[in-house]
């Protein structure tokens, strides 16, 4: 079983594919779960506090906007933990955790330079594309065993 980071890290389809193939998807909801379960932390909605963008300094310099560093404080540790990556580039409705294009660019770069096994795809728009999409993901995930 391999820990696979999916990008966008909020994708149900990608997380599901990873889980179907018996691996562990690293997704945003896992990080959010840790935050919302932290007792005595009162910073709704996500319980991200001003301390989090400071933790994000590990991944981006202080002159990088706070929203990027705050997001990176959650995505960064997932990238650190990842043993493989499944990246889909052209998500067109990325909001919230993936609502900042700069953060998404940085996250993709950090995944890329980590040197772990990875596959980069596009969201399918036809049955033929979907067939290749699913097949390529399956082949990739099977290869991780």
């Amino acid at each position, binding site marked *: 079983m391999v820990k696979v980071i999916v990008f*966008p890290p*909020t*994708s*149900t*389809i990608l*997380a*599901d594919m990873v*889980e179907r193939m018996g691996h562990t*998807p690293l*997704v*945003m*909801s*896992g*990080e*959010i*779960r840790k*935050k*919302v379960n932290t007792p005595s932390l009162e910073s*709704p*909605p*996500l*319980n991200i506090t001003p301390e989090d963008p400071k933790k994000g300094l590990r991944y981006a310099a202080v002159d990088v906007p706070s929203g990027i560093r705050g997001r990176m404080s959650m995505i960064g540790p997932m990238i650190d933990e990842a043993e493989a990556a499944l990246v889909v580039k052209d*998500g*067109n*409705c*990325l*909001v*919230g*955790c*993936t*609502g900042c294009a700069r953060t998404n660019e940085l996250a993709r770069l950090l995944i890329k330079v980590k040197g772990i096994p990875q596959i980069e795809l596009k*969201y*399918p*728009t*036809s*049955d*033929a*594309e*979907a*067939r*290749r*999409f*699913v*097949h390529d993901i*399956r082949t990739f995930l099977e290869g991780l065993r």
Partner: protein
Amino acid sequence: MRITKYIITSPESNILPSDVAMKIYGSGKDVRVKETCFGVMVDGEEDVVDSLIKEVRAMDPHGIFIKSRGFPPGDPRRCRSRRGGGPRPGYFMMECESKAMPLVSRALACEERGESVPEAAPQKAPISTEKLIEFIKDEFS
């Protein structure tokens, strides 16, 4: 540890969110269930939820998609009725992906049947300058 899973049914699946909810209710397991526009959230102890997920997936192996969810169902910190309205951002992603699910669903079924994978469409090449000049001449002649 308590976890929350989001079970999403593909719009083309014969299984409706209400069917999934009934299945979970029928199991008599100690979990919380909430039906939504896209599927069902189930919240409970990890091992209980995981075993339920297996049963639910078997209802339509290619048309049901599952992901974990950060917030438990109806958490006031994220609930739109308590937080000034507007859907939580994840809603849009889910709606987008829900629209793509039938494609993936059908592809998963083909994959399982071992059908051959169609060739990728050839990459579109930019038009040659000569051809473009020809079009311009045609248009303005």
